[in-house]
């Protein structure tokens, strides 16, 4: 650690940073247009709030770059414990929004602890998998890893927050795979996971079941979820090749699109910027992700690699599920689009993740 910061700047990954910043900016522009065109701009201060969150996100990113990830990893279990406590606390005192308890009021701001659970579970899994190394072949260590991810997943399902729970499950699967789990073990876990779907189903609230059923059979609920999806597809499709232009989306202007500034923000974007805009967006996400894979590959130690893989899994799962949902290829699960959807906690988490990635990259050149 005596090696100075000169070495740090050498490994600075400007591509990742540029992609992230561009995505955040596109998100802000789209949030602005979705609240502007609803005709009630005075009562929907989404843009200014999101701008504040983006600036806070930049600060969080900077802090994440400066702190050595090994330092954070040293306290991974403590962090993990604190977030579990928060989750339990939330179950008893949280505020209900749309029928689930996800929010804590902190100094006048609504915070969603389940967002930070993603981070602490990521840290604890990276630490644990690094600690056990090749003992991952032993079943007992595998079971511990399952428990580490399973406890927060269960607590989040109790809220219930299907989206975040799925992120945690996929995070565990991705990291186990990258950490070298045996193929037979992996196959067994996958089979057990599929067998566990009926149990999982029990945790879901009525509206969540309705969403999933509506995906299979859109006629079940043409006014609720299927309506959203149909309207979203119309919005995306009507964008055509070059889009209708900024602030000119008719679907969003007429308020035909529900949740247009949060989960369905891509529909607004694609309506306004068309196929070309959507391709640019996809390229930005791909650039970010492949750069992240490079970071995972070249990390200074296994812990860094594991962290990077976890972050990749978190981002790619959310991006794909959200985007496929807006084009009608995936059921509606309430997962926001990283960097773009309105919502402070998620933006903060995502930008912190990018900060960690940049930090891992910089420290891979220290000798």
């Amino acid at each position, binding site marked *: 650690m005596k090696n100075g910061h000169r070495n740090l700047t050498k490994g600075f990954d400007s591509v990742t940073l540029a992609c992230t910043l561009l995505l955040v900016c596109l998100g802000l522009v789209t949030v602005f247009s979705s609240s502007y065109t609803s005709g009630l701009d005075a009562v929907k201060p989404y843009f200014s709030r999101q701008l504040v969150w983006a600036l806070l996100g930049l600060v969080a990113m900077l802090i994440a770059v400066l702190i050595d990830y090994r330092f954070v990893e040293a306290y991974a279990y403590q962090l993990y414990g604190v977030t579990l406590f928060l989750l339990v606390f939330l179950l008893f005192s949280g505020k209900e929004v749309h029928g689930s308890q996800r929010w804590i009021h902190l100094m006048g701001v609504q915070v969603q602890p389940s967002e930070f659970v993603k981070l602490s579970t990521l840290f604890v899994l990276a630490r644990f998998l690094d600690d056990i190394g090749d003992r991952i072949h032993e079943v007992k260590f595998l079971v511990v890893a399952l428990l580490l991810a399973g406890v927060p997943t269960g607590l989040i399902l109790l809220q219930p927050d299907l989206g975040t729970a799925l992120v945690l499950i996929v995070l565990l699967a991705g990291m186990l795979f990258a950490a070298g789990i045996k193929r037979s073990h992996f196959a067994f876990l996958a089979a057990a996971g599929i067998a566990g779907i009926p149990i999982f189903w029990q945790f879901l609230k009525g509206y969540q079941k309705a969403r999933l059923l509506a995906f299979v059979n859109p006629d079940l609920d043409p006014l609720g979820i*299927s309506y959203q999806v149909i309207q979203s597809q119309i919005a995306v499709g009507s964008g*055509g090749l070059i889009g209708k232009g900024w602030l000119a989306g008719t679907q969003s202007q007429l308020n035909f699109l529900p949740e247009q500034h949060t989960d369905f923000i891509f529909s607004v974007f694609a309506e306004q910027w068309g196929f070309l805009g959507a391709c640019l967006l996809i390229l930005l996400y*791909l650039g970010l992700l492949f750069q992240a894979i490079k970071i995972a590959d070249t990390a200074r130690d296994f812990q860094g690699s594991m962290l990077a893989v976890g972050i990749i*899994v978190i981002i790619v799962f959310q991006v794909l599920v959200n985007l496929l949902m807006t084009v009608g290829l995936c059921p509606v699960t309430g997962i926001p689009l990283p960097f773009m959807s309105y919502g402070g906690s998620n933006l903060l988490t995502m930008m912190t993740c990018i900060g960690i990635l940049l930090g891992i990259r910089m420290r891979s050149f220290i000798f």
Partner: protein
Amino acid sequence: MKPYLRSRHREQIHFHLRLRVLSIIIACGFSLLFLQLVHLQIFAGTTFRSLSDRNRIRLLRLQAPRGLVFDRHNNILVDNRPSFTVSIIPGEASNPAATLQKLRRFLEFDEQEAQRKLEAARNAPFSQIAVAYDVSLEQAAAIEECSLELPGITITAEPCRRFPLLKGAAHVLGYLGEIAPREHERLADKGYVIGDYIGKAGLELVAEEWLHGESGGMQVQVYADGHPQIELDETGNPSVRIDSAGRELLTLGKKVPKAGNVVRLTIDADIQLAAEAAMGSYDGAIVVMGAETGAIRALVSRPSFDPNSFVSPGRNAERLEVLNDPRHPLLNRALQAYSPGSTFKIVTAYAALAEGIVSPDTKVYCSGSFTLGRKFRCWKDTGHGSLNVVQALAYSCDVFFYTMAMELGIERLEHYARLFGLGAATGIELPGEMKGLIPSPEWKQKTFKRPADQKWFLGETVIAGIGQGYTLATPLQLTCAIATIVNGGRLVTPYLIERVETPQSDKVLLERAPAQRHALNDSAALDLIQEGLKQAVVSRQPFFGTAWRAKNDTVSILGKTGTAQVAAFKERADTAKELEQIPYELRDHAWFASIIDGPDEPYAVVVFCEHSGHASESAVLVTLELATRIAEGAGTIASTETAQEGHST
């Protein structure tokens, strides 16, 4: 913090290859997305564009018809009728102002209000802006016929609540109103949306959960130059098939609305209407209840209002008039507490008999006043002479009951008043029921602040014996109290909802059984009181009973009159003024609590006439009129009147 360690493990597991697998999965996911985007935006782009251009997919909410309400003989008390609303969609009218101008040829509406709404909806050009509510079928048809001349004008039919009895039973049935923001917050989960009507008073409020039903909706593909027509079938269920130009519409999805449940009341529309008519021009209340069961057969409160005016936005002025009326027509007077006056003497008589203070033969001498520190006067200045308990009830002698109250003491009087159900809510299914008041020394201590006011005076016990002073009771409580005299001393719980059934009446969801408790065990005392109440009507010697005007040849009536002083003796000026000379608000309230022999059960009836002076004239005559009407015309009144109402709409 761990030192950096070269990881052998990472090489052993071919980490590089594993990352490659991850990359491939990512690439596959994005390829899928890319292909769908090509499909949606490039190949189907034009189709979707035209869909969005004219906003072709319309989401229509199909409001569930509210449940019907019937009386005990299957007469409709509340149902639904189609109501037509004329609206304009500014985005579909080339010139909204000109269209509105043309619309004036067909109907009258508030043009300024319409302009104001148009202005407010500038940012939502495809929203429907209501211009005129509840237009007649003829007007709606005329507008429909000329729809080509009126671009952007659309007519929607919605089920609207109808109360065929108009002002009748308004306080039982209640009324609806648009859902308030706070109610909406509470009920949004149950499918309520802003603009929905929700029960605000009476049964509409109490049975909201049963009556409300479940709204449905449709997603239809519409043409740019037409509007989907919501039609109502014979049961009031809305649906959409065609548009204003008669073209069939493509339905993309439909959720059928579920009608509200059927609520059957204990109310007997014949008796209700008889009571409404008998009440004449008096303010006040009438309660008619099955004395054995507690089933409410009629409940009148005056002044009344027309609940129909609450569901039609076009009748706003009428509604405001009701809301601002200083006589408070919305107040259900049957559930308000008033001084019970001499009707309370039933309680005092029972208490004295049950406690053995008097026997049937005990006589008390009335000289016209009773002295305890000061003189307490009997209403008959010259005195009644020697009276037993039966005579005391028949002539409503104050001195007799002053004496009884003194002997009993306030604690025992309070105990028996509570046995008769006074001082506690009866538990009827209507909101806003008052508990009334049975005073006691503890109550006084708790209620008053100044120590001088907290002391209980013997004089207060004396006047409590004749229902004056602090004592308060509701007409409904007195109905339950009088019922005990003929039903063997049982205190019933009055109820209105007999049964709740599914819309097709194929399943009973709620069946109400009469509830009661045995309160009064001294049947000999009850018999004596019954005799006293009978003498109040039939006695002519030595005096006329206080309810002598109720005597008739067709129907048996027995009862107890009561006159509740609104103002103290002194204010009223002791010189006997004619009723007309006393200011209205200082005039006495008149009570008559009676038992009428009905065709299949005895009815406990309480008539309460606000500020109407002496009971023997107002309340007793109203009761006689009601009893005669029940005896003569049961089974015919309601059916004819509701049928007429049905024809006129």
